[in-house]
């Protein structure tokens, strides 16, 4: 209960470490020390020789899958975002349904529907010459993650564009600038500053979410990890995967902070 009293106004004076802080920090010291001891004690050079390179290849599969689906999603998100902002109902309703469908259901269920479900229409897909695409787990993953990400990115884009005050449009109009130039030169640069962090978060979510593709037999970082564990029953395979994922996400987070500081430097005092 001492915690509850400590929550009062963010105090200006620095407090001495309390018991709770010492216990919590001590917990982490114990966890990291035993983890280091565990990894040192179970050090196995055979395991590294066998799975070191596959892990890096798996990481490459994860990164390439995420980057390509992110880019495809970004392209797809543009018409959807404009559909959401459009005046006409015929544009608004379908884009709303698209976004609602992909954000309201789990990615893993969507991937299963595409990978296992589309196989039922093999004859039809064959006849339109798309079976080669939906036969491959990698392409199915790309297809689903791109559509899923398009829904999220459309909302990011819409939110960012709508966050730019109306006065920016009106000011541009009063100077006689055409709508397309106002959009690309005045509104979009301001919207992108707002959108930078959400986009980076979406990228991080995709890296984490893409671990699901291991279930449909894509050998990404998580897929390789599962394979290594299934063959060796050595738990450190999962610990190394965790370290790799944490490093990648942390690098992305640092890059985002750097990029954000850079694009907002005209607003800092």
């Amino acid at each position, binding site marked *: 209960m001492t915690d509850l009293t400590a929550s009062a106004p963010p105090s200006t004076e620095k407090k001495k470490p309390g018991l709770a802080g010492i216990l919590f920090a001590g917990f982490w010291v114990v966890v990291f020390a035993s983890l280091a001891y565990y990894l040192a004690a179970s050090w196995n050079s055979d395991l590294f020789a066998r799975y070191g390179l596959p892990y890096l290849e798996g990481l490459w599969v994860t990164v390439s899958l995420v980057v390509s689906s992110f880019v495809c999603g970004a392209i797809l998100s543009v018409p959807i975002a404009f559909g959401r902002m459009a005046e006409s109902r015929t544009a608004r309703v379908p884009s709303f349904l698209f976004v609602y469908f992909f954000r309201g259901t789990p990615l893993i269920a969507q991937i299963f529907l595409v990978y296992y479900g589309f196989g039922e229409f093999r004859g039809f897909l064959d006849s339109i010459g798309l079976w080669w695409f939906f036969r491959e787990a990698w392409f199915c993953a790309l297809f689903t993650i791109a559509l899923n990400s398009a829904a999220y990115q459309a909302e990011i884009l819409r939110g960012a564009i709508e966050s730019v005050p109306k006065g920016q449009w009106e000011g541009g109009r009063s100077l006689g600038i055409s709508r397309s130039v106002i959009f690309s030169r005045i509104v979009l640069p301001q919207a992108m500053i707002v959108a930078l962090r959400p986009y980076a978060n979406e990228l991080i979510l995709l890296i984490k979410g893409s671990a699901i593709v291991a279930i449909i037999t894509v050998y990404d970082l998580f897929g390789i990890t599962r394979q290594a564990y299934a063959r060796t029953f050595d738990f450190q395979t*999962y610990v190394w995967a965790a370290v790799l994922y944490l490093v990648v996400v942390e690098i992305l987070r640092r890059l985002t902070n750097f990029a954000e500081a850079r694009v907002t430097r005209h607003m800092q005092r």
Partner: protein
Amino acid sequence: MEALTHLGFGETGWGDDIAHGVFVTGSLAVCTLPIGLAVGFLLALAKQSGDRLLFISANIYTTIFRGLPELLTLFLVYFGVNNLLKSFSDATGLPDIALSSFVSGMIALGLVFSAYASEVFVAAFRAIPRGQYEGANALGIGSFMTMRLVIFPQLVRIALPGLSNLWMILLKDTALVSVIGLTDILRQSQIAARVTREPFLFFGTAILLYLVLTLISSIAIGRIDQWSKRGEVSR
């Protein structure tokens, strides 16, 4: 017509199995929520406390559980804790105990939920002006009662949109626990799809059921939002 017999209840259909899956999905999410909220709130207090050790420790927690893929967290809990328990029972000669997939799912999703929730709570704490604490102090209200009667009600109102987002994410993340064998919506549909060879029908049904769950959630959240704002002037 064939689809109807597949989805029907009773011996020949999979309706009752999938309905049970809906119950499992719902109860996993509902059981995880209070743990995640409580731990997330304590973490937010730790980040707010001004105690450096608490601040750093809480941030290590969030960095780890926001950075790891949810699926990997789940596997780490499921295999890691079960390995530990097994070596423990081997060493002591006690009977084997193992975490079920439901409990592992609760722990893993609770870890992830609390890491995100703590950030939502911290943002909400920052949105409450200092004057609220000072006013309560001037009235002679103790710090625990200030928390309970003055800060917490405002905190809930400010944090609600963020927390309802997290609830939606939690609801969808329960589908991941099917990978370690929890018989939730997705798992049951997968079994049905394999037996009947109708994957599109069953995974489509699963997706529609998740949509229904998120729809019900958003209606319920709307009600809670109204309720939390009942003290505000209606305009």
